[in-house]
């Protein structure tokens, strides 16, 4: 059974159909990339999965449970975290307060400290700056904070929306290394990216989106060598 299964999903913004009946699956342990141009609907899909936007039709199954109509705040405790587009850290709170909010839905108080240590270990810079106000961090650091905050909920699957957006090339490589590490530590990853080359390099499988439809899917290394993908998304 797939960990996450999206079936015939349709999403509207008012009268405009943003997602036109798409289906895809994410299996446990995989890194799945959703790639496509701006406006293809990648962010909308993630937002619908975590209950930020309602689905018009279709179903979303998480571990076989229908979560299509589950309110957003009840999805996190089920083991799903979402690193939203544009990071959305709480800019007026400290780094540590942001991380603690990431663990908001957890009941196991004693183990939260362990997770915090784990996050600090993965992002030493967050530990150094734990008392700093999040709004004063650099873009790359805020992205790390957004990721660390998501990891604080101890998710089994993590949805990441454009983690490399607006970052300097050094940070981009670092962020993709971290995504790979998160995956290697046993967390399933659903990654939305405009940087198709980097995304395909670390993904197992990928889906290519165009204006609300999936136009291509397959093994990441196959897509990486696909002529049409190369032309449209890899700039070759």
């Amino acid at each position, binding site marked *: 059974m797939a960990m996450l299964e999206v079936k015939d999903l349709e999403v509207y913004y008012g009268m405009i159909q943003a997602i036109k009946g798409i289906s895809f699956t994410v299996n446990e342990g995989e890194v799945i990339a959703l790639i496509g141009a701006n406006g293809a609907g990648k962010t909308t899909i993630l937002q619908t999965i975590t209950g930020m936007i309602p689905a018009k039709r279709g179903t979303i199954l998480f571990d076989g449970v229908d979560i299509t109509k589950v309110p957003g*705040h009840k999805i996190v405790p089920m083991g799903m975290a979402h690193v939203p587009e544009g990071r959305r850290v709480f800019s007026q709170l400290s780094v540590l307060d942001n991380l603690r909010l990431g663990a908001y*839905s957890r009941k196991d108080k004693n183990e939260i400290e362990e997770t915090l240590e784990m996050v600090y270990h993965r992002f030493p810079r967050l530990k150094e700056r734990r008392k700093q106000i999040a709004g004063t961090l650099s873009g790359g650091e805020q992205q790390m904070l957004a990721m660390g905050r998501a990891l604080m909920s101890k998710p089994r699957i993590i949805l990441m929306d454009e983690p490399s957006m607006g970052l300097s090339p050094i940070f981009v490589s670092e962020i993709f290394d971290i995504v790979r590490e998160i995956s290697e530590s046993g967390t399933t990853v659903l990654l939305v990216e405009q940087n198709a080359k980097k995304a395909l390099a670390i993904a197992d499988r990928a889906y290519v989106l165009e204006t609300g439809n999936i136009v291509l899917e397959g093994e990441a290394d196959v897509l990486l060598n696909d002529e049409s993908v190369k032309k449209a998304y890899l700039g070759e």
Partner: protein
Amino acid sequence: MGFLSYLISGISLGSVYAIIALGYTMVYGIAKMLNFAHGDVIMIGSYVVFCAVSVMGMPPGIGILIAVVVCTVLGVVIERIAYKPLRGTSPLAVLITAIGVSYFLQNAALLIFGAGAKSFTSVVNIPALKLAGGALSISGETMVTIGACIVIVIALSCFVKFTKSGRAMLAVSEDRQAAQLMGINVNGTIALTFAIGSALAAIAGVLLCSAYPNLTPYTGSMPGIKAFTAAVFGGIGSIPGAMIGGILLGVIENLSKAYISTQLSDAIVFAVLIVVLLVKPTGILGKKVSEKV
């Protein structure tokens, strides 16, 4: 001694404004709306105390407790029925609804209690403090009001800073969607904010009517507007800002009444507000936050 006496009663009046302003500022910070019915919740709270203490002869403590419970429930019910269905729509629709709720509460009180002023019996029975050989007298109401304001501001600041629900409030106030992604129940957090604000309104009502014992269906309206002004003055969304704004407003109002003109005192208060906002548009302690479009 005259000046000191005016100053102290100004601080006392300002403390009432501050307690009301806390409700405005918290609801604005978290639900991003101006709850113009807030002042009328004060009036309802005062009527509840009046009925419990003056009509039914209950001890004041019990009366206040009942008023706090009634106002808390009222605040949550208003939010649920009038404001929640409008979440995500135009802020103007919410604002107009709030004004409608305000008129509804005033007219409901008019229907039940009539237009005549009820004489509110002070719930404070602490003797006045005589200082400087009797030249300066501070009433029990004044001391209780100032004390209550300080306790409430400290308690609320600690609640927001150190409790999980308080941090959830901060998160919701900054970014509702991101807060939801943390597993925070946004609707529940907003309801809690209304509950706290309305409970404070009940306390403010009791303190207000103990100092100024004329209770009518419009009692809450003017203090409500002034407290809103105080919240803007101090920087809307900020808890210490509400306190500073409220007390400054009360002091300015009282000193204007004493030394300039009773009739002009309100005009002077609002003129000061305009000047402050011209110099610092976000208020005294306001954070510079660009409004998201």
